């Protein structure tokens, strides 16, 4: 069980041509992932998704807030201990091409972390071999077909499976999958998504799934929670399918409207609208709704007061929440 409370990350001001102010990349984010549970984060580029994942994996320190993992407050630990403890959290990044060293075979790529663990646990090389075969089987790969190969000889989907297998060598409790399928061909995506779902169900691994493709969040397992994040703040959260079917926040509705409609198979949602993608860099004062400058439904109150996240099961931060059906529906003729 993981609990994140009031997580905030401020990146200091950068001196440069455009003279950046300090960036609040993550602001007061709270969520929890039960054992074998999943939480997905969606939001546009720059909304803070990766920063949350990196903090959880111990690659970035939060400015404030607490991270509890199985009853232990990680943020209070000394750095070296924290680093060891956070090995339970493994990060899988977007690009399976960069994640693997092109000059090392798959056997070497998996052997390196296993040797470290074997030394710690006083195990021998037979144990390493067994374990290597075990993690490859878990990701659905026949060891004999890949061990002697180099990364460039594998498909994107296979490579991402190897990256996941490498993460599994340390028996993680949590996987953070940051855009883990977005660079893989669509034909292979579903297989990797199903693998993540199986790892949850079979091995009790918890999943933090970061994506800008909302549809893929549905496939890492039902009963998952979806968090919509905008400029570092959670603006809507709840069960994945409920948010897709009944989104309250205009920003969530914009993200869902942006999902392409499959002509011939789907009908566009009756309330779908063409979302605006501002390139707005300007700072928005704390006293107004963050989304109000881009919101097609903004009213006076939105320019006077910042809405708080309200509700429990399905929460939203909007003064004028209205459910809009923006998602495409399947045509009857499909089958």
């Amino acid at each position, binding site marked *: 069980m993981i609990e994140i409370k009031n997580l905030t990350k401020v990146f200091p001001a950068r001196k440069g041509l455009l003279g950046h102010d300090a960036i609040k990349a993550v602001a007061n984010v709270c969520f929890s992932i039960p054992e074998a549970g999943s939480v997905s984060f969606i939001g546009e580029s720059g909304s803070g998704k990766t920063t949350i994942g990196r903090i959880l994996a111990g690659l970035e320190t939060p400015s404030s807030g607490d991270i509890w993992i199985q009853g232990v407050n990680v943020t209070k630990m000394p750095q070296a201990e924290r680093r060891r403890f956070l090995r339970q959290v493994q990060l899988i990044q977007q690009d399976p091409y960069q994640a693997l060293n092109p000059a090392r075979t798959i056997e070497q790529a998996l052997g390196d972390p296993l040797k470290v663990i074997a030394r710690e646990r006083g195990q021998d090389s037979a144990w390493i071999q067994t374990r290597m075969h075990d993690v490859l089987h878990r990701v659905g790969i026949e060891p004999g077909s890949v061990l002697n190969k180099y990364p460039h000889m594998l498909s994107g989907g296979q490579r991402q499976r190897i990256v996941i297998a490498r993460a599994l060598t340390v028996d993680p409790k949590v996987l953070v999958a940051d855009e883990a399928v977005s660079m893989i*061909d669509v034909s292979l995506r579903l297989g990797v998504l199903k693998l993540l779902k199986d790892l949850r169900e079979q091995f009790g691994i918890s999943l933090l799934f970061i994506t800008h493709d909302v549809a893929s969040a549905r496939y890492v397992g039902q009963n998952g929670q979806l968090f919509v994040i905008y400029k570092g703040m959670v603006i809507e959260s709840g069960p994945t399918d409920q948010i897709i079917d009944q989104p309250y926040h205009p920003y969530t509705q914009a993200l869902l409207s942006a999902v*392409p409609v499959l*002509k011939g198979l789907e009908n566009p949602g009756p309330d779908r609208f063409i979302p605006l993608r501002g390139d707005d860099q300007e700072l928005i004062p704390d006293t107004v709704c963050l989304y109000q400058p881009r919101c097609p439904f903004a009213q006076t109150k939105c320019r006077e007061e910042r809405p708080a996240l309200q509700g429990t099961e399905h929460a939203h931060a909007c003064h004028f929440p209205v459910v809009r059906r923006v998602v495409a529906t399947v045509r009857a003729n499909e089958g």
Partner: protein
Amino acid sequence: MAAEFEARDFHARGVQIRNLRVSYQTPQGDIPAVNGVNLSIAPGKITGIIGESGSGKSTLAMALMNTVPRPGRIISGSVVVDGIGDMLTIDKESRRRAHGRHLGFVFQASQNSLNPLRRIGAQVLDLGRSHNVKDLRALIKRAKELLGKMGLNADRVLLSYQHELSGGMRQRVGIMFALVLDARVVILDEPTTALDMLSQASVLQIVRQIHQERHLTTVLISHDMGVVADLADNVVVMYGGELAEQGSTEEVLAHPLHPYTQGLIKAIPRISGPLDQAVALPGLPPDSAALMAHGCLFAGRCPKRLPVCGESRPTYESVGQGRYVACFRVAGHD
């Protein structure tokens, strides 16, 4: 205003590709990246080209412009653009003039096609000079008009270097370059890959709008069926350097004929509907051995395989109403 911009012709231009073959020469042998492609690109329509990574989409697009880089080589075929002629045989100078002026091209990962050391505005002027545009002020005006239409602050963008622009802004700048000389045929190679959903939706909306306003012929290349399905009028499915199927988007999606197309559509993660309807496509794209073999390129992955599929390759046949397919299972082959 220069006459060259006023005299816009509004006749959309088609492109006829015949028996096109392109291969890359590598130490491991020749890779037939585009292998005997026959395709008519309808004037005034958006044609989507879809296929897995390595299926030859970018190579086909570059061959269309006759700009295949080494070690690639166009081995045979013709690419006739209405009003210009065969891109593969016209002289160098006419070809150079055709680029930009008649054919606009946005490269895959468009960031790489911009010069990192020159401001965007200066690059617009470079482009104009290289095409002997007399009225450079009018050209800048048109660039601003296009950028503005795409929701960008035109003055700021023209003064920027590429590294000062976000990925979504660069894609839009790439589209501006493709259109600023008033090209009539526009080829977009993965214009939204690596963009987030909102930037993608806005780029697609811009393409749709400009396509209509200017009566363009647009070729949209993507590995994402969603993007093609949302935008394109017609879709062409590529597999292993060959065409597997084509037709109107609605028809192909609702009634795919080729087992590969069927598998591809089933494998799309969907935003609504039952989860178990989506099934991953098993197997891998053809390797070089499969490309050289006699049988159907898809036979190794095909759930509907017949004995004949391992022996010879099905030809790409018309099955009526603008639909073509290369499959022994489909009528027209027996």
